[in-house]
């Protein structure tokens, strides 16, 4: 399969039934999507597939020929944080950090889709993402700041 990850084209040899999560982590070497539950329940493995948030643990590699994938590495760099990254950093939306890439990508997609999203839309967009550290308050504040900045 050939697909683009963060603007770079990759040709991978993984079996077509390997989940995208394993392909990214073990073959491409991108480790920000996490193996939190490997059954679509926690959101820690979320990546953007053609701009839409998807659970990479549930997508077989064979379905990915020609798609464009974005992980959190593609949103910005330590020197130049993207706006969602900056909002999470400044508003303490990340604690242990394990669930953070999934939240960032879901937020990034939400802002693209609904630039003026309200609290209800934010909660709906993040509903499939589990965090055990923050109690979600700091995350929601960070997302609201990111949405406000985009608006």
């Amino acid at each position: 399969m050939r697909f683009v990850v963060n603007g770079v084209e990759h040709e991978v040899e993984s079996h077509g039934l390997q989940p995208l999560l394993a392909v990214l982590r073990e073959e491409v070497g991108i480790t920000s999507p996490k193996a939190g539950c490997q059954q679509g329940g926690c959101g820690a493995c979320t990546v953007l597939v053609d701009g839409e948030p998807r659970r990479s643990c549930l997508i077989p590699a064979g379905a990915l020929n020609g798609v464009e994938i974005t992980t959190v590495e593609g949103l910005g760099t330590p020197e130049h944080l993207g706006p969602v990254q900056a909002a999470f950093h400044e508003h303490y939306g990340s604690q242990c950090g394990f669930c953070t890439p999934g939240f960032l990508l879901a937020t990034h997609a939400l802002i693209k889709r609904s630039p003026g999203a309200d609290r209800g839309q934010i909660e709906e967009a993040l509903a499939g993402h589990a965090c055990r550290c923050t109690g979600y308050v700091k995350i929601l504040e960070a997302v609201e700041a990111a949405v406000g900045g985009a608006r």
Partner: protein
Amino acid sequence: MKAVGARLPRYDGVAHVTGRTQFVDDFRVPNMLWAKALRSPVDHAAIKKLDVKKAAAIKGVHAIVTWEDVPRLVYGHLEALGIPGDEPLLAKDEVRYKGQPIALVAAEDEDTAQLAVAEIQIDFDERPALFDIRKAADPDAPQAHHWGNWYPHFEAEMDVRQIRKGDIDRAFDQADTIVTGVYRPAAIEQLPLETQTALVVPEPSGRLTIYSCTQALYFSMGVVAAHLEWPLNKLKFVGGTVGGGFGGKVDTAAETVSALAALKSGLPVKWRWTREEEFLCSSTRAPWHMEIADAVTKDGWILGRRMLTLHDSGAFARFSPYGVTKHSFHHTGAYTIPNLHFDGYCVFTNRVPTTAMRGFGVTSVSFATELHVSRVAEVLGIDPFELRLKNANRIGDTSPNGIAYADPSTVPTIHAIADAIGHELPADYRTMNREARGGDLLPEHLVAQVGKVDH
């Protein structure tokens, strides 16, 4: 004082939001094997047969570790604090809880390791299991532990953690009313997003480099060294980045067996628990059973407390006796009760061993105490804020284990709560403070206690 009151950026914040933070699962080493465990499918059984030959012959399997490979099979997490060891690293002739590890297979990939686990030959002779701590002392209760159904090694080899303070019989004689209650918080799974994961790399020097998600790095190093019977200087631990722990990653769960598999295979080994394993057999917060009887006066003084606690330790002791001790020291919560009679048992069952979670041993009794104080207020027809303020810890009051409070925060906290919800307090309660008791706040039953304190 640059940090207090300031909004400082997290030192790891930029790495978190850019995907650069490396958790154990994110380190890459060449020729790494994946590990999968054979775990007990039953709650309690004798192991009649364990044969790994067929599994070991599968192509791609490099090592299978069982109890026979462990230099020191039984080591207690708190042996240094006088709590003897009771738990084998891998089950030998019996299993005592569902999910207890029996063997670890290290293979070229996860699928091969899982396939080999299924090929391990094992026979069980099932035994009755004990799940309800209230039934542990019944004459016909299943025996959950070789020490008996509750921990027998508190100080002076007592089988109970006791607190005795003041004159409990006099308190109950003087009481206008006795208010009783039973409180039973259930187990809670810490559920970190990062499952238990270890990566162990044999080094050319003969040392092991151990990537660990532990919350207690030097503690885990000691546990691994003890089981291996190795000096500490042959272990290099890499850690400090924990994908959520909440107490559950104080237990050394994956490192030691992974180290044995790395030594046996001569290759790096990663053992990453599945979410199912986390739910099945990672150590939870304990279930508790707490019975309280408070001797109270009509005007809202708590004169004395009798309390019985049963703590569900699960199948092995681990940290639980320490948890029961902490629980006993805090069993009056944020309040001062001068006469106490507390008995706490650390009960064994055929559940997964329980462990720390945010306020180990104390949250359970805070839950019970706060509910019970409200219950006392309801029975007496007294405002629950006023009852709390009256009995609140003050400077110089002593805790159940005799420590004088230097900085108690109960009174200002209750004032702040009343303010936050707009609860009106009478003037004499509004002006209460945490200074040492005197005047009306030093009723006869507290004189003896306060009189003993050196100021």
